[in-house]
């Protein structure tokens, strides 16, 4: 694929990506919403940690990069329509995001590669609006309150992937973790009282390290990714419009070890069966964390089938990949005193670039998040995932 063509496609997609005040209302609490790592290929089949694709390496497990032979530029984004149902209100919201971008290039073709980019790990984006009234000095004032939360927690990895043995690939990266999260409350009143415009902003900054391995033996692949627990510096800035000065406090927050493991089995006929599991002990952070009370351990399990991309029998055409997946996740915080569970079904496909130098992959998934009985709200999200992976011989 010509670089100019790839760049044009990427720019066209990026230019369309914008964010709206839209996500599930569960992202208003605690750790916000988990953002999927990987690409549309992983989202479509529900797994990716044990994916070994020697031509177009996946991104869920950085050890897979050890097979890289060309420079890879990868963009993965989603468009999402969410319907939130509550006992008295419902809301439809839309958003588009581009959470994963990666640039990787081989240092030694097929055995050593380097990567960087960014990955949004958690996202906070919702806005609620309520009206009410309050009586002061014998006078009743109407109140319109907008409560919004915005921001994200992202990391910039810089790492290496290395294949020391034929069936084993290893990877390590240092991740610069950054992220602003802002809670904003705007209260306007009827009559003379002036507006309250209150912002509580958290700025996270720190580093983490990620270790990864990908082991392949015959039809079986095993993958594991571990990001050990680490501390993040947190600067809290509290401000209110018209009030002089900002209150700044500094703190540290402990992030738990993030465990990820996956398995994939070649079934024959181009079919693969795989599964991923993740676990993070957010529950150990306690109620005094900057994330607020009600944190719980976060885990997920995904499983799915994939019919791989391959040439047609006549050799002139491709047989499109087909992916089916299911994933269940328990969120890292509770709402209404009950855990928030998410279940996702998905399917996906893709198309390669010429000479198989990269691909465009699509996924379509439907998610059910929470339930009205326990959490007060149920969200249903329809997500379109798009990822573009381009491979080029640039300077290497």
């Amino acid at each position, binding site marked *: 694929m010509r670089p100019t*063509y790839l760049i044009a496609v990427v720019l066209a997609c990026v230019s369309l990506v914008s964010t709206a005040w839209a996500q599930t209302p569960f992202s208003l609490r605690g750790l916000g919403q988990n953002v999927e790592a990987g690409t549309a290929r992983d989202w479509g089949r529900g797994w990716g940690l044990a994916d070994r694709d020697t031509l177009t390496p996946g991104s869920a497990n950085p050890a897979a990069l050890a097979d890289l032979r060309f420079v890879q530029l990868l963009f993965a984004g989603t468009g999402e329509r969410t319907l*939130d149902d509550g006992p008295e209100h419902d809301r439809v*919201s839309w958003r588009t995001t581009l959470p994963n971008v990666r640039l990787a290039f081989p240092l030694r073709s097929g055995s050593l590669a380097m990567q960087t980019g960014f990955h949004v790990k958690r996202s906070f984006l*919702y806005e609620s609006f309520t009206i009410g009234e309050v009586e002061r000095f014998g006078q009743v004032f109407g109140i319109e309150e907008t409560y919004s939360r915005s921001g994200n927690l992202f990391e910039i990895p810089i790492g290496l992937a290395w294949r020391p043995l034929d069936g084993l690939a290893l990877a390590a990266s240092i991740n610069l973790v950054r992220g602003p999260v802002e809670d904003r409350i705007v209260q306007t009143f009827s009559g003379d009282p002036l507006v309250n415009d209150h912002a509580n902003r958290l700025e996270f900054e720190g580093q983490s390290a990620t270790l990864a391995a990908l082991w392949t033996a015959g039809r079986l692949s095993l993958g594991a990714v571990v990001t050990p627990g680490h501390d993040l510096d947190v600067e809290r800035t509290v401000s*209110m419009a018209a009030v002089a000065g900002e209150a700044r406090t500094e703190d540290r927050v402990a992030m738990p070890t993030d465990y990820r493991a996956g398995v994939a089995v070649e079934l024959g006929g181009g079919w693969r069966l795989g599964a991923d599991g993740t676990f993070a002990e957010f529950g150990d952070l306690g109620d005094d964390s900057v994330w607020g009370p009600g944190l719980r351990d976060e885990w997920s399990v995904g499983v799915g089938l994939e019919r791989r991309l391959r040439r047609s029998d006549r050799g002139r055409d491709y047989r499109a990949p087909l992916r089916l997946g299911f994933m269940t996740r328990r969120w890292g915080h509770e*709402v209404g005193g009950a855990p928030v569970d998410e279940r996702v079904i998905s399917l996906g496909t893709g198309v390669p670039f010429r000479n198989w130098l990269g691909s*465009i992959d699509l996924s379509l998934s439907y998610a059910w998040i929470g339930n009205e009985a326990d959490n007060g709200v149920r969200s249903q999200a329809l997500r*379109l995932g798009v990822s573009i992976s381009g491979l080029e011989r640039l300077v290497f």
Partner: protein
Amino acid sequence: MPRPLLPTGSRCRGFLSIMLTTLALMVGLASCTSDDANPMGAGFGNTALDTLMRELVVQDLAHHGQLEVGDPARPLDQADVLYLGGRDGDASSIVVNFDFASLAHPDSVALDTLLTDDNVTSVRLKLLQLLWYLPGHGGLVDEDDESLRPWAGASKVFDVHQLSAPYDTLSFPDDEPAYDPNLLSLSSEPAATSSLIFVNLEKATVLRWVRERARVGILIREGPGSTPGLVGFSSKEMQFGGSTLDTDNALTALGPSLVFSLNRTPDYWDSGRQNYIQQPAADASTWHDLQETSSDPSERIEVRAHLRSYPVLRFDPGVLPERIRVNLAQVVLHVDTSRTHGPPNILTVSEYALDNAPDGTRTRVILDDVDDAADLIGGGRVEPEDVEGTVVRLNVTSALQRYVNGLQDTDTGFLIAHGERFFRGFASSPGPGFYFSRWVFHGTGADPELRPRLEILYTRIDDLTDGGGD
């Protein structure tokens, strides 16, 4: 053969269809708009300003100074209104100087043959009473308005005396000047409460002034049998209302004038004109009794117009927490209706350096000093019609926020004044020098609910971070 940029054949069609579908979906998603925010998710957040708009009442009046404001550009003898009568300890008569020496001018020589005893049938003093002082305030306002007391008008007996000497125009407020006790006015009956008032004078005396080309002064006093009350008349400087008057020559002179009714008039006069008008050389109100404005805030707090007097108040702000958003701060004053009178006027509130209005004193200043020192507080304005019942609320929110933010360089208080000309956008018309009025508010010695106070609604910025303690 060059390599094509895109896949060819069936691969091309597949590739293009997926690309176009993808782009169409992304365009579609990007153009979709979310529903407006609604109560969905309310209460999910970890934080909430649930202690918004705390109430705080400050009744400790830490400072009270009173400014007695003079206007050198428009001294009392150049006021638009002349006052007669008395009210609540204030009393005034009217002094007028006439200068008949002007008749010595060659242009006036023809008048010598007209202002003679046989040609002048009568000499009257003409006064133009302002509409506000007519019954029902001349219909200017709704008498049902509680902020305005019903007014039936005041029928006055106008006693006119000759002054011992023409008065000094800059001597008032002061006692009435010495005068001849003999009356120049011929009637001791109350005049009708009309706009135009004529008082018959002794013709012989006035014609003597004419003959002698005299400079004389007269004193117009409230005579026995008058209805109590303070009423106002147009002065020669009156700048309002002239255009609404008839063009009759007798009426176009707005100040106190002498009207000579003539049998014979010059040929060059308009037909129908039968009067010669002698306009005043000077006129003024004496304000020989003037109740001092209060320097004791426990007794009352007062805003006076015409003879401007404005209070400067400071409430003890020490009780204010730090780092708060002042949602609303109002100086609340309760009108003492038993002592308040006069046409209501716009009230404004400004920040004013306390050094310029020492505590417990009356300080004489000039209007330009107030202009220089007063920093009008945006929104701190009360129109008379905005007064609910007897409560006046002056919005000082922005000033208090500046105080909380530590942005005030000096100790300041709240200057309560009328809508002076230099308060851009807040100037009243007519200005505060026009009507005499007193807005009297209950002082700190009144019942607690009537005392002056500063009512504050505020929200603590730290409510989110420390649990919203008190």
